[in-house]
């Protein structure tokens, strides 16, 4: 964390709303993107980011200054998004309006071309989103930071509050679980195999 950001955190911790506003302005977009990946809904992503910032504001006293503010906020936002997603699923279930989860399953089996390819792709994305939501918190943070944010293992270790070996293991476990979900849905083009 650079000196300016550290100063901002310290001032915000002391109750300086303008300093916190600087943090909000700097991180709204990356946090929104992280939340969107989980929620696939722009408005819900904004709600999750709002909740995340409120959590962060109240938890600033507990923020470890040796950690990266960005990864700390990221983790809070991802958790807020996961909570939102669970709430949404519960509401949809209660309303009896759970979407047809396997709409795309028919498409996978269909021999037809483009529309189904789109459906398959849509299904893959939905499944990937579900699978990410099902990961443990450490695994989810690790894979989102590594795959989407391009963060190094060292940075992930810092975000998780552990060592590099634990961060690597979290990435490995996440990849293994995601592959287990995605692989069956992916068609290996015939003739490509040796």
């Amino acid at each position, binding site marked *: 964390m650079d000196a300016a950001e550290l100063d901002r955190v310290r001032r915000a911790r002391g109750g300086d709303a303008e300093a916190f506003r600087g943090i909000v302005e700097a991180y709204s977009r990356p946090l*929104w993107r992280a939340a969107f990946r989980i929620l696939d809904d722009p408005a819900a992503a904004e709600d999750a980011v709002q909740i995340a910032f409120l959590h962060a504001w109240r938890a600033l006293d507990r923020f470890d200054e040796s950690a990266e503010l960005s990864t700390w906020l990221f983790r809070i936002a991802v958790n807020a998004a996961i909570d939102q997603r669970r709430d949404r699923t519960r509401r949809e279930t209660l309303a009896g309006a759970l979407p047809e989860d396997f709409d795309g399953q028919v498409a996978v089996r269909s021999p037809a071309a483009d529309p189904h390819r789109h459906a398959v792709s849509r299904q893959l994305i939905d499944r990937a989103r579900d699978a990410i939501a099902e990961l443990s918190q450490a695994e989810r943070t690790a894979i989102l930071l590594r795959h989407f944010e391009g963060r190094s293992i060292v940075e992930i270790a810092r975000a998780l509050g552990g060592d590099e070996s634990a961060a690597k293991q979290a990435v490995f476990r996440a990849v293994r679980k995601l592959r287990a979900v995605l692989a069956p849905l992916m068609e290996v083009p015939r003739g490509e195999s040796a």
Partner: protein
Amino acid sequence: MASRPDEELILFFYGEHEAPQDVERDLATDGDLSRRYDALRRELSALDGLDAPEPRAGLEIRMWARLAPAVTRRPGILRLPAGWLGWAALATGALVLALGGFLAGRIFHPAPTENSVASNLQALPPAARERVLEAALADHLDASQRLMLEVANGSASIDDERVWAETLLSANRLYRRAAERAGQRRVASVLAEIEPLLAQLADAPGTFDLGVARAQIAKQDLLFKVRVTRNNLKELS
């Protein structure tokens, strides 16, 4: 040589392998390893479909607007409301107030000028700007109504409400002037009626008797008037 485990391929995929040249060499010569790596790459690439678009313009402004009331209320005063009604109330007024950064400005720093508010808004596309303003006015009326309800129900202390009233007062002046300029006389008139109450609460000393404010709300039927005006805006938010 013995085939490399998946863990090494994952590290290689993410550019974290300590000896990438060795992996590249093996991939070029080991067909089975190469196939395994292709499968890994294909499956992980499927995650790219989750890439997020850019958020709607003005996200930072909207976000601060939502957060400002909670963040700028003094520690100990903030009571985060529970349930969706509570969250709605929390968002209420926030949009308005933070549009100009009033809250922070009034409490900690010199208040930003109307020009700075205008320039923030000018950064938005026209349709979005109009929606933001309309929704902000609706939120402002909700927030004013909630403040009056707390006062009328006797559930508030002046220490709790002073800061909130001060921020609402700033927003109220802006909206009243905007409504006057736009020829929306009814809206302007209601905003003008609640302004003295907000000013009174904002400047009230610790010994202020909230009964005076309660009497004013009842005598002028302020809650009813605000509710009606807000309902007329219902479709806007």
